[in-house]
Structure formats: C-alpha cells, structure tokens
C-alpha cells in the first residue's frame, strides 16, 4: 500500500517551510514506491489548505489526516507519523 504524504509550504517560504520541502524530497527518495509525496506550495496550496481546515504552514497531512502543523518536524517525528500512516 502506498502512503500519501501532502506537504504544505507558504510562498514566500519561511525557514520551516524550506526545511519541510527539503525533508519531503529526502523522504520521496528514501521511500520511493512506498510513499507518494505531494508538495503544495503557495497559492496552489490554498484549496487543499482550506479543505483540511489548516491554520498555518508548514504542514504535513498523511493519508488525509493532519499530522503536523506550524512547524517542521524532526525526522523521528515524521517517521512516527508515517508509521502510524502504515509505512
């Protein structure tokens, strides 16, 4: 089963958004084939941002469940969230 991870970043980005986008690229490579990473940045993120009723970025939504909001998580935190999401 592929786990879906949506990563939200603002534009212009804050330091947390830059960090989370780098982390998203890293995880897309690391879990290629098992993790679907979707980056939603700036205006293009607005519709999904509102759909999930997010309050701020950076944010991570895994399998349509909000896991992280307003901060770039550590790798440990993100790993835990992905495990809970079935990775």
């Amino acid at each position, binding site marked *: 089963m592929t786990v879906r991870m949506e990563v939200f970043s*603002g*534009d212009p*980005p804050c330091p947390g958004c830059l960090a989370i986008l780098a982390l998203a690229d890293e995880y897309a490579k690391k879990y290629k084939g098992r993790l679907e990473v979707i980056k939603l940045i*700036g205006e293009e993120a607005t519709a999904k941002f509102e759909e999930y009723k997010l309050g701020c*970025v950076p944010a991570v939504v895994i399998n349509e469940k909000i896991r992280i909001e307003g901060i770039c998580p550590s790798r440990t935190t993100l790993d835990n969230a992905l495990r809970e999401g079935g990775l």
Partner: protein
Amino acid sequence: MSKVKIEAFLSIPTCSGGVSLSKLLKEIEGELGDKVEIAIYRGRHELYQKYNLTAAPAVVVGGLVRIMGVCPSKETLLAALREAGLE
C-alpha cells in the same frame, strides 16, 4: 511627528510565524495606532523583491529590513520602532 511605517510580509498560506506576527501587529496597532502606520503584504508582493527579502515572515521598519524568517518579540519590534524614531 510623522508615523513610523511598519511593512509586514507574510506567506500564502500563512506560516506559524506569520500568524504570530499578525497578532503582534494587532497589539502594536492597538497600543500605538496613532504613532505607527502598518501595511501587511501577502505572497510575492513587488516590495518583497524590492527589499531583497528571502524568507517570510519579514518586517521592514521605516524602510529598513529588520526581521526576516522569524516573528520578533514585542521588545524587539519596539526597539526597531524606537530606532526608526518612535517616541
């Protein structure tokens, strides 16, 4: 005496620092509304490029870039305002 201008730059969607900065500016406006002029810009406004900003949130006081990529404390913002001529 002319008002000190505060220009704030926030990302779209707003990051956690941007949310904090918005609250801080409301507080400052409530306390010093007759002494400051506040302008809030969202997204990649032309002034974002003009000031060579690289991260949001950012605060420009009296035409000088003072804060970038973080929400300042109230003390920090007040110090910047005083340097720009706030009495």
